[in-house]
């Protein structure tokens, strides 16, 4: 692969596998923003999974099917203890990186994020659950990262436009 060639990223393949395995999750992060209408470019999927044992087993099987690797570890073990031990767990797959975020900043985890989420049709029969714009803005506000001001402004404007005419010109 040349240095200019982008890393492989096939979000539909990843999401299709999660759906096929009936994994309970919500798409968050930049890709969720893109699906709502931001103009970012990303090469990974951030998900907030339900942390029940059987769901994590389904998630593990889905990621194994995608050739999932966790750092230098040979085996891919996704259990509650190891996932909760870090705010984010990155899994490299043949279809791109998946970041697992058990408790997105400013939220109480899957049940909280799922409440405002919507299932979005993305093609090839995939309907992925995507976090709401308000929840994405909440996460970003809580993270308070320098350099996110522009992205946050876009998310907030998007929320205004989604709510309809009245505030945004």
């Amino acid at each position, binding site marked *: 692969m040349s240095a*200019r060639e*982008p890393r492989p*990223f096939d*979000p*539909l393949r990843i999401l299709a596998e999660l759906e096929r395995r009936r994994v309970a999750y919500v798409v968050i992060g930049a890709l969720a923003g*893109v*699906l*709502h*209408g*931001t*103009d*970012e*470019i*990303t*090469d990974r999927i951030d998900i907030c999974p339900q942390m029940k044992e059987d769901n994590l087993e389904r998630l593990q099987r889905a990621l194994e099917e995608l050739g999932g690797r966790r750092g230098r570890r040979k085996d891919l073990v996704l259990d509650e203890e190891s996932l909760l031990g870090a705010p984010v767990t990155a899994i490299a797959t043949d279809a791109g990186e998946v970041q697992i975020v058990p408790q997105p900043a*400013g*939220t*109480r985890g899957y049940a*909280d994020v799922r409440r405002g989420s919507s299932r*979005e*049709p*993305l*093609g090839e029969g995939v309907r992925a659950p*995507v976090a709401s714009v*308000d929840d994405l*803005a*909440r996460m970003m*506000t*809580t993270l308070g990262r320098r350099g996110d001001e522009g992205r946050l*402004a*876009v998310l*907030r*404007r*998007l*929320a*205004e*436009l989604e*709510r309809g005419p009245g*505030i*945004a*010109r």
Partner: protein
Amino acid sequence: MSSSGSLIREARLRAGLSQGDLGQRTGKDRAQIARWERDEVSPPYETVLMLVRACGFDLSSELLPYDESLSERIRDVLPLSPQDRLKRMLQRRAGGGA
């Protein structure tokens, strides 16, 4: 700008409070707080400020220049379906962000 409902909800959740907890702290009815959070009814600014402060936060009210270009950028993408937004992003990514 967030809606008043999402501001109240965000402050409450970040404080780890239920709607009932916030109601007890502020003397407001839990059902009324729920209606405000759903943006069914818009409370006065002073009420939003009081609720947010009851969660341990403050609201910054300052006048900033309105950036029309943000809406312009979004309006190009907003008419697209989520499927087309994803395709567009992947095409831009493959083209080096153009």
